[in-house]
């Protein structure tokens, strides 16, 4: 009824509309506007689009619109074609290349154009420059693509070459590598650089939950499916719809769940736990493991068909000991980052300290290196980090790792994983465990207080803290 009223109103005011200077109106907009006829030839464009594309509107009338905006819309399902055919409006993110050879990220809104008589007249494209939004998004999320994966070694450069390829397709990716090599970071980088980046990236650790819980976590459940299932739960597959599901520690997945995952990969649909209605999903799967899946297949612990289904694109991340060229780069990066976070005035590492750090084996890889740097920057009260500021466990670990280096089963690496999460928290069987950070800090304050004869101003200066921070810490550790 309202539509009919509008139509009658428009018809009665046709003379008024025809007198409106529509182009002047559009010229005042800060969005690019392009009108094309049913054959997609340019009818008109506004001034903002002239600036965006670098073309003068008088010279482009009658030319195929795609030659003017040079977008990637055709590779994104051709929304202009769809708008012309189905008369539906749609929005799509993509890019254009302008006359200055610059690629600009754009949000396209495409709407069909219809005359009052109902006759199709073409389509209207609105182009919104989202460069700033993209920049902001990159800053908020910390990285875009591979920017925050650090490395210049040959092995890492090979990975960087593969990343855009992995991002361009929807094929399953299997990321392998020892613990702490950056598998999660690579998975997220692939997602962020892919067409699915606007949709969720959901990580599920297959080794962290018992089988029954993991099934419900992945596929969801319906109310009453089991004791305690008071509400419907959508599950991670459904939550990741349109985006990427990252299954880490896939080697720890039980055989029954492997079958279910395989079915989802093949059919793109599944039954939630206790449900009788199939759920369809469009999810890209990225998996990671520190285990040798080939060996697990041989031992019958991992399904061969699932292995081949997941292993379409394989990325193997090298351990830190095979990335000698990257060691100093990573060390400097973590040092600068942590120093800035803690607002410390440390200038760097002593030569002895660097020798010790570079000769260490790093079974916990990049993660371990970062934790060692964090510990050292926290503990160091002066301007230079010396060997005695490194975790005391480092030397013992070096000995332990070198003695067991010949027996590096993945399970050994796994058992060390949690221990490596923070230096100085190795299991007591491996090395003598020092106290936590709280104890270290307490001892540090005590030592500084003793050295300064209890003078708080001098103690604060020695520790590189303000007096108020020292006061807070003294109360916190019960040293008052």
């Amino acid at each position, binding site marked *: 009824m309202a539509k009919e009223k509008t139509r009658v109103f428009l018809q009665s005011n046709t003379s008024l509309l025809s007198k409106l200077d529509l182009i002047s109106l559009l010229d005042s907009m800060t969005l690019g506007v392009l009108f094309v006829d049913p054959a997609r030839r340019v009818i008109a464009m506004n001034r903002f689009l002239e600036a965006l594309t670098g073309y003068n509107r008088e010279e482009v009338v009658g*030319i195929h619109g795609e030659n003017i905006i040079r977008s990637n819309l055709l590779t994104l399902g051709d929304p202009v074609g769809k708008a012309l055919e189905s008369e539906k409006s749609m929005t799509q993110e993509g890019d*254009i290349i302008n006359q200055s050879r610059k690629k600009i990220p754009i949000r396209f809104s495409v709407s069909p154009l219809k005359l009052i008589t109902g006759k199709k007249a073409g389509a209207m494209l609105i182009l919104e420059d989202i460069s700033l939004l993209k920049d902001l998004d990159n800053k908020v999320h910390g990285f875009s693509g591979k920017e925050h994966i650090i490395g210049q070694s040959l092995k890492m450069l090979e990975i960087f070459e593969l990343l855009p390829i992995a991002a361009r397709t929807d094929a399953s990716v299997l990321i392998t590598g020892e613990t702490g090599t950056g598998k999660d970071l690579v998975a997220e980088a692939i997602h962020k650089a892919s067409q699915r980046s606007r949709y969720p990236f959901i990580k599920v650790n297959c080794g962290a939950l018992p089988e029954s819980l993991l099934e419900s976590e992945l596929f969801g459940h319906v109310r009453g499916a089991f004791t305690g299932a008071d509400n419907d739960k959508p599950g991670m597959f459904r939550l990741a719809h349109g985006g990427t599901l990252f299954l880490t520690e896939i080697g720890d997945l039980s055989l029954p769940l492997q079958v279910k995952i395989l079915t989802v990969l093949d059919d793109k649909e599944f039954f939630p736990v206790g449900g009788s209605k199939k759920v369809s999903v469009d999810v890209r799967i990225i998996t990671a493991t520190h285990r040798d899946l080939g060996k697990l297949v041989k031992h019958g612990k991992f399904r061969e068909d699932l292995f081949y289904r997941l292993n379409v694109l394989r990325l193997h991340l090298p351990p830190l000991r095979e990335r000698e060229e990257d060691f100093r780069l990573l060390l400097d990066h973590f040092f600068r980052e942590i120093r800035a976070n803690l607002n410390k005035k440390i200038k760097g590492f002593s030569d002895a300290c660097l020798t010790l750090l570079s000769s260490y084996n790093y079974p916990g890889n990049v993660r371990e290196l970062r934790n060692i740097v964090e510990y050292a920057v926290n503990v160091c009260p002066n301007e230079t980090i010396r060997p005695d500021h490194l975790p005391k466990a480092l030397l013992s670990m070096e000995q332990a790792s070198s003695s067991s280096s010949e027996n590096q089963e993945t399970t050994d690496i796994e058992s060390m994983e949690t221990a490596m999460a923070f230096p100085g928290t190795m299991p007591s069987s491996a090395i003598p465990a020092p106290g936590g950070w709280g104890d270290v800090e307490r001892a540090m304050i005590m030592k500084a207080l003793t050295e300064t004869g209890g003078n708080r101003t001098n103690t604060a200066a020695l520790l590189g803290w303000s007096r108020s921070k020292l006061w807070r810490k003294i109360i916190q550790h019960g040293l008052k």
Partner: protein
Amino acid sequence: MKILITIHKNEVASRFDLTSEILIAEVDAGEIAGEPRIILLPGTSGEDICGLAIKENISLIICGGIEDTHYQYLKWKKIKVVDGVIGPYEQALKFAIANTLKPGVILPGASIYGKQS
């Protein structure tokens, strides 16, 4: 001289990096030598076309929109690029042989209403 044109149907393709078809023509003494080859590429990649151009010893590339990275790379490899060309690729080739093809040109036959050069 070998000329490579990125094409889409009968026209110069609007985007270098999204081109899936190219034409390679050999020009000798101001005339096309032999039959120009049309190659269907296995995928769309600016890097792959750059690699192909080097492998084929191309002297001139005629294309639509191209990213500066690809343009500078080709320039560094001493391959001349005439970009932003709009219109039928046969016209583009004709103008290139006559040495009158300019970047950003809208060729005859590109428009049904617009100004034509």
